[in-house]
């Protein structure tokens, strides 16, 4: 061994299969996942809509305009689709809650169905509160 060994920089390339951009259309469960995540866009639309409405309520003469605008067929369709996606988000979210939250009471684990039920109950209570607040005029 008279010289220092010379190491080459060769190493085998890692095998990485190329993922197609459309991997998610091949299976219904993948498609459902992407649709669920896309519901986030409609949540953002609702925030925009809400802020537009708040602006209209506090502006002079804008309130009537806002209501007429919100009754346009295009806006109604967008809101209808948004509602469908938002409901999809809410239901899938509440159904995941028992799996994500582990609550222990007195050493024993609270059954998942209770956590799910309490989430849905909270949803019903909040919705009722909103309805009473707005319809009780």
């Amino acid at each position, binding site marked *: 061994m008279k010289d220092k060994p010379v190491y080459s920089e060769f190493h085998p390339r890692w095998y990485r299969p190329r993922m197609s951009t459309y991997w998610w259309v091949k299976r219904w469960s993948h498609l459902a996942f992407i649709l669920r995540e896309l519901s986030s866009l409609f949540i953002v639309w609702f925030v925009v809509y809400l802020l537009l409405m708040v602006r209209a309520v*506090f502006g002079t003469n804008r309130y009537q305009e806002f209501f007429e605008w919100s009754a346009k067929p295009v806006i109604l369709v967008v809101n*209808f689709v948004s509602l469908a996606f938002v409901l999809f988000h809410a239901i899938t*979210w509440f159904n995941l809650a028992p799996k994500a939250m582990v609550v222990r009471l007195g050493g024993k684990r609270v059954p998942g169905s209770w956590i799910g039920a309490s989430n849905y109950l909270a949803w019903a209570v909040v919705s009722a509160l*909103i309805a009473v607040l707005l319809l009780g005029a």
Partner: protein
Amino acid sequence: MLFSGGGVLAALFIPMLLFLFGLAFPLGLLPAPSHQHLLVVLSHPLTRAVLFLLCTTALFHGAHRFRYTLYDGLQIKHLNELISLLCYGGAIVGTVVAGYLFWRAG
């Protein structure tokens, strides 16, 4: 935490609010509250605080999720920085706008 909080608040509040303000009132399915009534409800500090919290957390929840949908769905990792900037930047802009509107209300 911000992400999951946004998801919870969005799931709890948005369905009813969107149904009422997006469909029921414009379509006349249910009697719409008068301008005066809305003014009173929206001016209340608690309403403003809750709605602002809802807007902020929902915007960040949406931004985060949308960013990952683009990342995972369309496999465009090389545009990661631009997408992050647009998503979170948009959420920040929305938060500032919401804050301004709710601060000035009432």
